[in-house]
């Protein structure tokens, strides 16, 4: 086991992927000499050369569009969109081209493109640097959406995403880029669990918290704090939010009967809404109370000083847990 930051784990994953398959090329703004604004692609230019590590012009639609052309030619492009808020110019190429070409051509043209996006907030960043646009892509048939919450998953899932013949939007929680964790660099990829699987990161019996990305560690913190109150909370890291591994989720809900879904992204028509609709369909008779969402508010991402009032934190999650457990909570007041 090696201790790596999430950023370094991604770097290692890219390195492995490029080593294993010469058709893997990475492209994006500032990813070559600079090694990326977050240094995720650090060292790769020296190792693999400018033909495979491509600094692109400042044009997101152009980056994704040319990646489409490279995919036509049989390459496996890994695109970096510099920040979540900058993905929108590329939205048309992603939704109208990348997502549809396999289907349109009945599989004759494959789009094994991975689009890496530094994602979400919590770092007090400037405008447009803290977005959570994943719902747009979850809603887009034809692409898969993967999120990672820890260095081991970052290392492994990125390689799996690149190896997949399907296009993958790969969200990396930027606030965890510098967080360390154990990574098994030697475990063969072939032995790894499939990319689409969710993981129960903490077992519990009283309620299930379903989440992904940086919110996983917030949920784990909430579960720890809840122990002091005698609560046993189960935390699931979805990892794949399109498709969602409902087998794992449903098994948990059948055990606990109580559900809280948490994400940074805003509430309306977000991923939590989808998960809850699906969970309700599948587990209605097991639910002891209505499943609840803990999300960002339906506001444009607020300025840095107000960020902490927008992002779900330990207390908001536990308030929702109290609600699903019929304990005193913010809606009922201090007394039951």
């Amino acid at each position, binding site marked *: 086991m090696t201790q790596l930051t999430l950023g370094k784990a991604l770097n290692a994953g890219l390195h492995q992927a490029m080593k294993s398959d010469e058709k893997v090329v990475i492209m994006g703004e500032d990813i070559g000499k600079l090694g990326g604004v977050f240094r995720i692609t650090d060292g790769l230019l020296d190792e693999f050369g400018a033909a495979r590590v491509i600094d692109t012009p400042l*044009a997101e639609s152009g980056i994704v569009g040319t990646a489409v*052309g490279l995919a036509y030619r049989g390459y496996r492009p890994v695109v970096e969109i510099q920040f979540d808020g900058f993905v929108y110019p590329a939205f048309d190429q992603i939704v109208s081209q990348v997502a*549809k070409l396999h289907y349109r051509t009945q599989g004759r*043209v494959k789009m094994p493109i991975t689009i890496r996006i530094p994602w979400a907030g919590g770092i007090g960043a400037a405008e447009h640097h803290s977005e959570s646009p994943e719902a747009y892509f979850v809603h887009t048939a034809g692409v898969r959406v993967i999120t990672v919450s820890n260095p081991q998953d970052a290392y492994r899932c990125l390689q799996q995403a690149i190896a997949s013949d399907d296009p993958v939007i790969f969200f990396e929680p930027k606030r965890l880029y510098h967080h360390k964790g154990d990574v098994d660099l030697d475990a063969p990829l072939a032995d790894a669990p499939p990319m689409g699987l969710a993981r129960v990161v903490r077992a519990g019996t009283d309620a299930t918290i379903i989440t992904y990305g940086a919110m996983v560690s917030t949920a784990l913190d909430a579960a720890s704090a809840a122990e002091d109150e005698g609560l046993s909370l189960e935390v699931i890291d979805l990892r794949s939010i399109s498709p969602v591994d409902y087998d794992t989720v449903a098994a948990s809900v059948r055990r606990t009967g109580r559900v809280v879904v948490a994400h940074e992204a805003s509430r309306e028509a977000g991923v939590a809404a989808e998960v809850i609709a699906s969970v309700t369909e599948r587990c209605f008779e097991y639910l002891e109370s209505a499943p609840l969402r803990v999300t960002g508010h339906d506001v444009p991402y607020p300025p840095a000083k107000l960020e902490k009032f927008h992002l779900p934190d330990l207390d908001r999650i536990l308030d929702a847990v109290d609600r699903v457990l019929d304990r005193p909570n913010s809606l009922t007041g201090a007394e039951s």
Partner: protein
Amino acid sequence: MSSQTTPITDPAQDLSLAERLVAPDGRRLSNPELDPFVADIDPARLRELHRDMVILRRLDTEGVALQRQGQLGLWAPCNGQEAAQIGTARALDPIDFVFPSYRETGVLYARGAQPGDFVRVWRGEEGAPFDPQQLRVAPLQIIIGAQTLHAVGYAMGIKHEKAREVAVTYFGDGATSQGDVNEAMVFAASYQAPVVFVCQNNHWAISEPVAVQSQFPISGRAPGFGIPSMRVDGNDVLACMAAMRWALAHARDGKGPAFIEAVTYRMGPHTTSDDPTRYRDPEELDSWKSRDPIARVEAYLRGLGEIDDEQIAAAHADADAAAREMRAECLGMVTRKPLAVFDEVYAEPHSGIDRQRDEYAAYLSTFEEA
């Protein structure tokens, strides 16, 4: 190569400054830049080009008819653009890869599309007309200009492998306003990718005249990106071929991208849903009739004594046969079964779609046979 430095908006003047080898009345003109590129084109070859254009026009007319008869949902006619499409497409190497828009029936034809391929998408049976890897043509592109980026990416791959192939992309005058087309030229020039941009300036983007897109000749834009360009008479099949050969050689020899603006005219509507009488001057249409590409090359060949009525009739007979084949293919298409809706969304197994397919299959099984 040419580029104007002053804005021009008069079509008549436009054309006199475009590269040309055959005048509208059929006279052969000398053009020192282009002549060498078509020195090998003998009358036999010219007759073939003529026949190609006759067949193309006939297929195009049949497409319109089929739509009017309810057999196709839509058709995008290319009437008037035969020379631009056949001339350029016949210059391609089989190994080259084309990224068209949705109006390049002539290009598909030249690349060897089968009769059904022309109608399969417009009839709504499938999303792509043929196997792109086989025909070396990407599927039709309705998102204006998106295909230009794909061509550039493809060309970047070619360059990476040091191969002698060229990626070619076709688009219209309207498309040149789209960000993607401009980004494509940025990328192409930055990487010196072996890609040829073919803009068919047919003067109209639905109801918007080209002056709305640009006050300046479109070919004048490319050099601004660092890409050499040529403005050619799009109704002169010989000049189009020559220009394309120049551009392809440029790219193939590793000199980077090239741009051609073929100045032509969209004689018909934008699509079968459009009514050009609402926005076009009938006089303008008439003036372009006198520049007809097929009549031009016919006049040229007649002037050389290299085509007679019999040969022309034979070309038309071939055209009628091709149209009949296309019609038969169209009418004979069998729509896929309902569950085909779920096919090939993903390359790899996908739990979400598998479940939806199963649920829908169960739902369908509740009905009596349709």
